[in-house]
């Protein structure tokens, strides 16, 4: 087979021009390595986010409704005061609703003698705990009596507890928020950082009545968490909540909602969309880097053809057709590109494994980027090899031999 003989000549050409071969592989190697690493990080982040959502106890039967228009956790207007306890009572009265948790929220500085830290303070009802299913590891959660008496008690997340009390036991101690002193009655189980850097443990919970009358001194709510009886009725419940809130807030039929829903599906969709954005960027990065790799191959091959003009001439003199020369140089560029791709995939695999091993970034190694790497590098070799190969083949034999 003539084509196989040309392949063998291409291999010999690469072996004889090791320096050029190595240089040519570099661009593709870097491109493919970054591609595999970025894919691995993307996959790793996705799977961690999914795990985290599952960990939040955000079951399929629950959702939250936040005050103010916008999307998910990103409100457009922070000064909406329309959400009140009236809304909570009306939602609680709806069929198919199991638990309703009203919430107020503010970032404030909390102080223990000389130690202080800024954390998110939530004013919630005692149903928060069963709705959220977040264990109290030490002490206990506040109850209805604490609510009724507007008692100044607080349940701390791990982060402020650690910052204020270090190794000592915070239970029974007093902390100060603004001018109000609170007694620590419970500690929440530690959840750990999410991938986006969000710290769920950075919070302090106080009874809603206390926050309304003693701390925040406001009656409007930040959000309401709703747990329905079954996941099948969630959609229906959300529609009901929309009607109740629009009516209570006195919105005209043409006005936009002044509240927004946060659902597990919504978060999932958001994750998916971010992932698509990531994929688009990834495609751009790898296209650019492989383009650069391809141009490197093309240029080195063009220079190398000038260096090897005698070789081309000799081959032509002894019977090589134009197509033989084209094939040989095309094989060289494809082989070099595949070699670069293989080296890049290996490097990418090593880097991803290292990232995972040292817990630097989440990484999950999948087969797809490696298959992609093979295809891409083959394509790069073909596309950027064709011009030099044709150029080599079209040199007239009498000129190459002089």
């Amino acid at each position: 087979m003539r084509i196989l003989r040309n392949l063998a000549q291409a291999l010999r050409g690469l072996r004889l021009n090791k320096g050029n071969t190595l240089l040519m592989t570099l661009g593709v190697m870097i491109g493919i390595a970054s591609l595999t690493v970025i894919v691995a990080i993307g996959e790793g982040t996705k799977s961690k986010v999914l795990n985290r959502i599952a960990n939040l106890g955000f079951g399929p039967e629950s959702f939250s409704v936040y005050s103010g228009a916008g999307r998910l956790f990103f409100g457009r207007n922070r000064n909406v005061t329309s959400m009140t306890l009236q809304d909570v009572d009306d939602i609680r009265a709806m069929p198919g609703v199991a638990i309703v948790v009203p919430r107020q929220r503010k970032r404030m500085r909390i102080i223990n003698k000389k130690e202080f830290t800024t954390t998110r303070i939530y004013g919630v009802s005692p149903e928060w705990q069963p709705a959220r299913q977040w264990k109290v590891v030490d002490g206990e959660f506040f109850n209805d009596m604490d609510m009724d008496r507007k008692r100044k008690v607080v349940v701390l997340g791990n982060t402020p507890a650690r910052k204020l009390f270090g190794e000592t036991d915070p239970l029974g101690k007093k902390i100060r928020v603004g001018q109000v002193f609170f007694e620590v009655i419970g500690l929440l189980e530690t959840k750990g950082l999410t991938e986006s850097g969000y710290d769920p443990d950075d919070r302090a919970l106080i009874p809603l009545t206390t926050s309304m009358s003693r701390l925040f001194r406001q009656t409007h709510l930040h959000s309401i968490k709703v747990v329905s009886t079954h996941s099948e009725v969630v959609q229906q419940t959300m529609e009901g909540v929309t009607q109740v809130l629009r009516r209570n807030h006195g919105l005209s039929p043409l006005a936009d909602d002044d509240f927004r829903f946060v659902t597990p599906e919504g978060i999932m969709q958001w994750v998916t969309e971010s992932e698509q954005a990531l994929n688009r960027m990834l495609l751009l990065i790898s296209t650019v880097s492989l383009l650069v790799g391809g141009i490197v191959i093309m240029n080195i091959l063009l220079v190398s053809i000038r260096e090897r003009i005698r070789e081309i001439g000799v081959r032509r003199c002894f019977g090589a057709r134009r197509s033989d020369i084209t094939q040989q140089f095309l094989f060289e560029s494809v082989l070099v590109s595949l070699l670069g791709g293989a080296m890049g995939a290996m490097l990418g695999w090593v880097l991803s494994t290292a990232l995972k091993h040292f817990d630097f970034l989440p990484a999950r190694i999948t087969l797809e980027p490696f298959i992609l790497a093979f295809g891409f590098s083959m394509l790069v070799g073909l596309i950027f090899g064709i011009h030099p190969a044709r150029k080599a083949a079209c040199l007239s034999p009498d000129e190459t031999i002089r």
Partner: protein
Amino acid sequence: MSISKIIEVDSINKTYKNEGLETNVLKGVSISVEEGDYISIIGPSGSGKSTLMTILGCLNQATSGTYLLDGEEVGKLGDRDLSRIRNEKIGFVFQAFHLLPGVSAFDNVMIPLIYCNKTPADAIERVKRALARVGLEHRMDHTPGQLSGGEQQRVTIARSLINDPKIVLADEPTGNLDSKNGAEIMNAFDHLNAEGRTIIVITHDPVVSEHARRILTLRDGEIVSDKINENFKESRAGLARTTIE
């Protein structure tokens, strides 16, 4: 010796165009060569002998005129057929050897066999035999850089013969060699001719041209003389005593 014509060149012209300037390098050159003949084409530099060599070697085509090589009209052939003719019918020997650097003598001699339509089953044996004929069987694995000039030129002769071509076309084969090695190479050509192979040697050196039976002189793109070499019989007679090595 058969009297069939292997090369028939009839009034070929070759014009190069360079930046709008036309240069007539060959002006109506006609040559006919019988099979088994030994020809030298002599002329000063700029006489067009290199151009004539590339046309005879099917590396280039004439602007006008006809060229019949072994019955085929070269001027009408495309790249595939020209490549086939170069592969099967012509063995080239160059002044600068043109061996692939870094490639062993064995693999250099192998090159024409790569581009055969069908690689012969005894390819390895043939390469070994060809190298043995030029006395280099013990240096098969050496690269050109490890061989002397004379040895390199002997490798090119082995390479030119590997496909058993009808014509050996040599362009200044002794130009890069000292006189002793040059004489050895010319001896080799004498032997090949004695075996019945057609040899065409292009040179500017009268000593080299004296080996041929027929001497053509080229000047300014025209053949100015075409004479039989009277000393040829003597040199031929002397062949019996000399060997290639």
